[in-house]
């Protein structure tokens, strides 16, 4: 069976969930070979093997953290040369898409971004995309070169599928471009203790209706009662009530959780673009005409300052 390269997104050796989802999809089209780069690359092996990686190619070098994007492209190109895979899968983070695009160009390949599903096809893997703010579903494939495909988080289940996970160290020669853009400083995000927005099973969001930074504690309390991540509309972010990293929508994060709860959000097309593929959608809004209600499985027309605290209390009571 052909091998499929899976680029590993990890933080100092801790593999992020979207990579495990990629392994699930990779097994549909071939045998997953993972590529782990940078500090802690060696620590990813056990987790990757447990989820189906037959091989893990690792390489540690300071360049991966000190320079933007290109060193990782060089490494994937080296891995491609070593393995001759049937496809290359990368998760759809901003950086992941840039890495994938430059790799595709070097390989003479096409690229498909933001796939929400992947199946084997007669002429190579077929990717499903959800486009125009999720109003259309398309099926596409790469018709030239080795398919390079980026996949959105939460597009597949994480499955245990123990495999050999044989470690090989990858030999990488960095290109002249590799050191072009220097990372001169890095401020890590402060951890909130809540799940990562794009990876969370439940997202609770607040919009302009929340009416103030201090009131976001109501949204956070609901999120915490459900073990959820907190999101925000651009209106709430632009007002300075919540950080931009939590923005959901076209110019923020695209989320696809099991449950999305929109509070005081009208449902503008740019917001819908980032949450419309959520499995179950619920909204609280005092305006019965708000477009968000066109999307919901369950909606409450009412004041969020009454409804949300009551909901949080009820959840706590039921959970005991």
């Amino acid at each position, binding site marked *: 069976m052909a091998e499929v390269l899976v680029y590993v997104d990890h933080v100092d050796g801790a593999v992020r969930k979207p990579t495990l989802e990629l392994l699930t999809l990779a097994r549909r089209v071939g045998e997953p070979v993972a590529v782990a780069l940078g500090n802690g690359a060696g620590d990813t092996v056990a987790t990757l093997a447990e989820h189906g990686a037959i091989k893990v190619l690792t390489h540690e070098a300071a360049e991966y953290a000190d320079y*933007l994007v290109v060193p990782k492209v060089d490494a994937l190109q080296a891995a491609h040369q070593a393995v001759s895979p049937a496809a290359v899968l990368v998760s759809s983070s901003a950086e992941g898409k840039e890495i994938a695009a430059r790799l595709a160009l070097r390989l003479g*390949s*096409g690229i498909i971004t933001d796939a929400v599903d992947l199946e084997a096809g007669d002429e190579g893997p077929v990717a499903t995309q959800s486009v*125009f703010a999720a109003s259309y579903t398309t099926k596409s494939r790469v018709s030239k070169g080795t398919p390079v495909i980026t996949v959105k988080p939460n597009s597949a289940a994480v499955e245990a599928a123990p495999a050999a996970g044989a470690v090989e160290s990858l030999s990488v020669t960095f290109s002249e471009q590799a050191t072009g853009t220097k990372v001169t400083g890095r401020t890590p995000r402060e951890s909130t203790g809540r799940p990562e927005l794009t990876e969370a099973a439940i997202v609770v969001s607040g919009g302009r209706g929340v009416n103030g930074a201090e009131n976001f504690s109501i949204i956070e309390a609901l999120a915490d009662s459900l073990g959820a991540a907190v999101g925000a509309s651009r209106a709430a972010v632009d007002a300075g009530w919540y950080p931009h990293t939590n923005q959901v929508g076209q110019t923020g994060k695209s989320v696809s959780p099991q449950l999305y709860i929109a509070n005081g959000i009208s449902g503008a*097309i740019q917001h819908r673009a980032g949450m419309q593929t959520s499995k179950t959608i619920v909204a609280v809004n005092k305006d019965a005409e708000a477009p968000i209600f066109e999307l919901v499985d369950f909606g*409450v027309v*009412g004041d969020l300052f009454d409804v949300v605290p009551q909901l949080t209390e009820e959840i706590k009571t039921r959970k005991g």
Partner: protein
Amino acid sequence: MSLRIVVTVKYVPDATGDRHFADDLTVDRDDVDGLLSELDEYAVEQALQIAENSDDDVEVTVLTVGPEDAKDALRKALSMGADKAIHVEDDDLHGTDAIGTSLVLAKAVEKAGYDLVVSGMASTDGTMGVVPALLAERLGVPQVTLLSEVNVEDGKVTGRRDGDAASEQLEASLPAVVSVTDQSGEARYPSFKGIMAAKKKPVESWDLSDLDIDEDEVGLENAYTTVESASERPARTAGTIVKDEGEGGKQLAEFLASQKFI
């Protein structure tokens, strides 16, 4: 010293319109109004600010690859304050994908002459967010992308990139390709004077032969990707909507419990 900035701008169907696909599975441009991708307004704005804050002699050129109507996008950028415009238009470009588009843009940027390319973070139709990285790869210059803050000084570009795990400070030498996010600062509205002035600014038209690109390198037939089908997503089945009469939170909890979320 002089600084030549090329801003890439895309003409897109209005996102608030009823967007759909034509029979050949490319974007239907007939039934929806088109406009300058809103996210490219931020690129124009940053280019103009770089020009205004520079002691150098700066020229800002806006560049689009697109159909006849894409001139509207150029005119808007010119009325915001750009100096001149280039429109790459050719029937053979219909259906070109990201790899092909980046080829055309790279050749046009090279022909125009540049020290700095400024792009948007993503288009509002394809939304791939890959063209700036592809351009940097093709041009062989540093990629300094997704900046929420950008500065150009002494032949260097610096800026802040807010990533998932960290906020990074970046630095590269010119020439370079930059892309800016919608956090980089509100784009200005064209003034009446700007709109009048734009009418007199030069718009050059180039086709594939001007760029030494063969027709078999671009277009739908030669794309690196193939769209096999496009189907309208069925409208979500109407959900239950209740009016809060004092029990709304509890009713919502009941729904969540019935769906096993609690």
